[in-house]
């Protein structure tokens, strides 16, 4: 188990990008999963997904597991980290939506 500050840093970094948040969510729901399988559910290329997976692995949030000829990714085991990642992802989405809602309400005013 790494230091809490490492986890905080990793989560902080992971939530900064919408695609990465989605990758984290998909990993939490479906992992272990290959980059190709992940890219089916995402609006970005397999190469972009692979890049995000590599970055998440570097940050200690995801782990590559070789199975035969495939490389599958999963979230790293500590459940606390997974829980924080879930909250970061969902919270990040609402932060974005609420900013958009505020703009929408502002634009609707005469």
């Amino acid at each position, binding site marked *: 188990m790494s230091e809490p500050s490492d986890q905080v840093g990793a989560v902080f970094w992971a*939530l900064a990008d919408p695609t990465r948040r989605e990758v984290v969510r998909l990993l*939490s729901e479906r992992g272990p999963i290959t980059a190709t399988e992940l890219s089916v559910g995402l609006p970005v290329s397999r190469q972009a997904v692979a890049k995000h997976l590599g970055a998440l692995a570097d940050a200690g949030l995801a782990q590559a597991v070789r199975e035969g000829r495939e490389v599958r990714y999963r979230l790293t085991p500590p459940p606390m980290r997974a*829980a924080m990642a879930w*909250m970061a992802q*969902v*919270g990040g989405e*609402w932060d974005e939506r609420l900013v958009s809602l505020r703009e929408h309400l502002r634009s609707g005013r005469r």
Partner: protein
Amino acid sequence: MYGATVQLQSILAQAQSSSNEPVARRPDLPTPVDDAVTRAVVLDASRSAVWAALTVPEELSEWLGGRVEELDLRPEGRGVIRRDDGATRRVRVVSVEPPVHLTFRWWPFESAGTPRPGAATRVEIRLAEHPDGTLLTVTERAMPGSAFRLKEPS
């Protein structure tokens, strides 16, 4: 990144405090974790204007993160949100009380060919009058009993 810092602090605060409301818990977690996310904002608009933004499909489509193609605003009513890339997420209304309270379940975005659907989460939105407009509180949490499934290999 000031906003993100505040957000992270709130995440940590939530992770460290336990909520008064009953939530699904994972017994294997080292610390009590409330698997819910809450945001509260004061919006400079009347409650009826905010309610419309929450319930009229054309308005929802402006901010919710996808085009609301369908929304039957009754208990058990269904909704569909479509993202630009074609992926859709299903919505199921739980309860509605205009103009103060809306609860729904929704499922993650799915593209055609998604291996299997993700778990639903429950979103509860409350509106309250506020001197500066309207206080909106939103809570999203995993469904009781299903939690956010962390399919970690055992």
